[in-house]
C-alpha cells in the first residue's frame, strides 16, 4: 500500500532510526513515542512508555513511524469505548497496524464489520462454545499430564518448547482433527502468519506467502475429505464444510478462518502458559498463596491473562470524523487500542503491575477485548490454562525460572521465544 513503508523497516537493526530501545521515555518529546516499533517490547522496556502516555497523552498521535501514522488509545475506559463502537471504529481492512500485512494474509471475520462478521462468526463459534468444550476436557488433561510427566527433573530445559508450544499445538490438532504427527506445521503457520520478516521466523514476505499456500493446500485436502462425510463430526473443518454460511466460502476466506483459529488459539495461549510461570517467579508470595490453596487456579488464570496481555493491541480504522477523550480523529485514520496499557490503568486496576492470584474482579480485564469481536476462544483458553495449572500443582513444588526469558520481536504478539526452568518436584 502506497502510504505505508515496507514492513522491512520494522527490522531489528539496533541502528534503525525508529528504535526506542535504551531511551528514557520521559526525556524524549512525547510526540516521538512510537509504541508500534517492536524493540521496546522485545527488550521488556515498554511499561514506562505506556505509563507516560496514559498520564500525559491518553489519546496520542504518532505522526512518524515505520508503520505510518496512527492514534494510540491508552486508557481502559477509552479502549472500551472504541471496542464497543464498530459503527465508528471499523475492523476493516485489517486489525494489524501495517496495512500491507493484508496483502500477504487473508480475510477473516476478525477483520470484518457487521453484518458479515456476525454471520461468519456464528457458524464457527459453536465449536469452541463451553458446552462443547466439556467433552474435550478429559483429553486435554490426559495430554497435559503426559507432557508434564515426560519432563526432566532438576535439570535446565526450555519451558516454551517442551510445554507451552507442545500443549497448545496438541490442542489445536485436536480441535481440527489434524493429522497428529504433522501437528508442528500448525505452529509454523501460526508463527509465519504474524511474524515480521527478518524477525527470526521468516526472512521475507514471499516466504510468508509460501507458508500460507502450503497451509491452504493442506486444509483444502482435509476439507475435501470431510465435506463428503456425513454431517455431525464436531471438528472445525467438518463444521465449516457443512455449515450453511461457510460451505460455499471462497478458498481465501476459508484459509482466513482457519488461520484465525490457528493464530488465535496458538501463541496467545502458549504465551499465557509461559507468562504464568514467569509471574509466579517474580511474585513468590503469590506462588505461596497458590501452593496453599489450589482452588485459586481459575481466578489466577484470568489474572495471568491480564498480566500477560498476550495481544498487546487491536487496530481499528475511523469510519467517520469523530472525537475521543478530547482528540479529533479523522475518517480513515488508524486507531490502536493498546490493551497492554488499559490492563495497567490504575484508575480501574489497583496495583496493576503485580500479578495477584486472588485479585478481586480478575475477570474484568481487556485481554480478550470487548464487544462484537470479543475473543471467541476465551473459554477454551481459560480451560486449557486451568487444566495445565491443576496438573502442574499436583506434580511440582516449584518451576524455577533461570535467567531472563527471551521475548518475541513484536509489538502485537506479546510473548516469549525461550524460557529456561528447573523443576522441583513436590515432596511426597
Amino acid at each position: 500500500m502506497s502510504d505505508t513503508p515496507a514492513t522491512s523497516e520494522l527490522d531489528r537493526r539496533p541502528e534503525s532510526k525508529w528504535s526506542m530501545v535504551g531511551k528514557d521515555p520521559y526525556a524524549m518529546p512525547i510526540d516521538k513515542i512510537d509504541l508500534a516499533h517492536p524493540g521496546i517490547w522485545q527488550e521488556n522496556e515498554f511499561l514506562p512508555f505506556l505509563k507516560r502516555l496514559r498520564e500525559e497523552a491518553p489519546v496520542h498521535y504518532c505522526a512518524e513511524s515505520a508503520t505510518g501514522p496512527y492514534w494510540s488509545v491508552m486508557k481502559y475506559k477509552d479502549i472500551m469505548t472504541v471496542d464497543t463502537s464498530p459503527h465508528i471504529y471499523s475492523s476493516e481492512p485489517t486489525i494489524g497496524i501495517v496495512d500491507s500485512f493484508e496483502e500477504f494474509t487473508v480475510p477473516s471475520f476478525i477483520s470484518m464489520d457487521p453484518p458479515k462478521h456476525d454471520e461468519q462468526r456464528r457458524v464457527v463459534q459453536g465449536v469452541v462454545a463451553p458446552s462443547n468444550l466439556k467433552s474435550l476436557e478429559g483429553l486435554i488433561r490426559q495430554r497435559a499430564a503426559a507432557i508434564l510427566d515426560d519432563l526432566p527433573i532438576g535439570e535446565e530445559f526450555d519451558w516454551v518448547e517442551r510445554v507451552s508450544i507442545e500443549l497448545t499445538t496438541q490442542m489445536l490438532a485436536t480441535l481440527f482433527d489434524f493429522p497428529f504427527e504433522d501437528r508442528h506445521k500448525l505452529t509454523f503457520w501460526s508463527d509465519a502468519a504474524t511474524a515480521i520478516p527478518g524477525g527470526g521466523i521468516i526472512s521475507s514476505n514471499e516466504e510468508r506467502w509460501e507458508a500460507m499456500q502450503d497451509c491452504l493446500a493442506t486444509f483444502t485436502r482435509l476439507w475435501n475429505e470431510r465435506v463428503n462425510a456425513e454431517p455431525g463430526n464436531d471438528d472445525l473443518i467438518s463444521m465449516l464444510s457443512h455449515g450453511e454460511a461457510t460451505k460455499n466460502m471462497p478458498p481465501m476466506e476459508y484459509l482466513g478462518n482457519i488461520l484465525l483459529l490457528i493464530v488465535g488459539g496458538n501463541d496467545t495461549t502458549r504465551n499465557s502458559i509461559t507468562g504464568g510461570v514467569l509471574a509466579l517467579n517474580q511474585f513468590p508470595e503469590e506462588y505461596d498463596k497458590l501452593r496453599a490453596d489450589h482452588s485459586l487456579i481459575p481466578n489466577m488464570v484470568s489474572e495471568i491473562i491480564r498480566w500477560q496481555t498476550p495481544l498487546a493491541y487491536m487496530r481499528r480504522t475511523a469510519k467517520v470524523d469523530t472525537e475521543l477523550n478530547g482528540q479529533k480523529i479523522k475518517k480513515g485514520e488508524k486507531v490502536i487500542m493498546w490493551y497492554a496499557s488499559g490492563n495497567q490503568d490504575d484508575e480501574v486496576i489497583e496495583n496493576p503491575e503485580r500479578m495477584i492470584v486472588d485479585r478481586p474482579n480478575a475477570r474484568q480485564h481487556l485481554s480478550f477485548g470487548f464487544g462484537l469481536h470479543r475473543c471467541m476462544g476465551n473459554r477454551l483458553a481459560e480451560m486449557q490454562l486451568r487444566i495445565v495449572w491443576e496438573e502442574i500443582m499436583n506434580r511440582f513444588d516449584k518451576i524455577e525460572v533461570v535467567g531472563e526469558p527471551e521475548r518475541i520481536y513484536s509489538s502485537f504478539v506479546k510473548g516469549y521465544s525461550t524460557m529456561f526452568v528447573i523443576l522441583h518436584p513436590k515432596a511426597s
Partner: protein
Amino acid sequence: MVKVLFKDHAGREQSVEAATGVSVMQAAVSNGVSGIDADCGGSCSCATCHVYVDEAWLDKLAAIDPNEDAMLGLSSDRRENSRLCCQITLSAELDGLSVTTPEFQF
C-alpha cells in the same frame, strides 16, 4: 426493595432482594449469585450475564435494543427468552421476577 428469583440449570434456587433502579446483574453479583460472570461490568459488551427470563415476565421487560441483540448473538446457547441481565433495570413492576442462568456463560 424488590425480589428476584435466580434458578440455575440444575434447578437450584436463590432469592435476593434489591433496590429498584439497579440492574438484575448488579442484584446477582452483589448477592453472590453464581452463574453470572459480568466480565464487562454491565456495559453490554461481554455477554457473560446471560439469563433465560421466565415466560410470564417477558412482556414486562423493555424491548431488546440492537446492541444487546447483537451481543446475545455471540452465545451459542441463545433462546427466545434470552436476555443480558445487565440490561434489565429493576422496577416495582418486576417485583418477583424469575430468571434461569445457563449452564455456561459465553
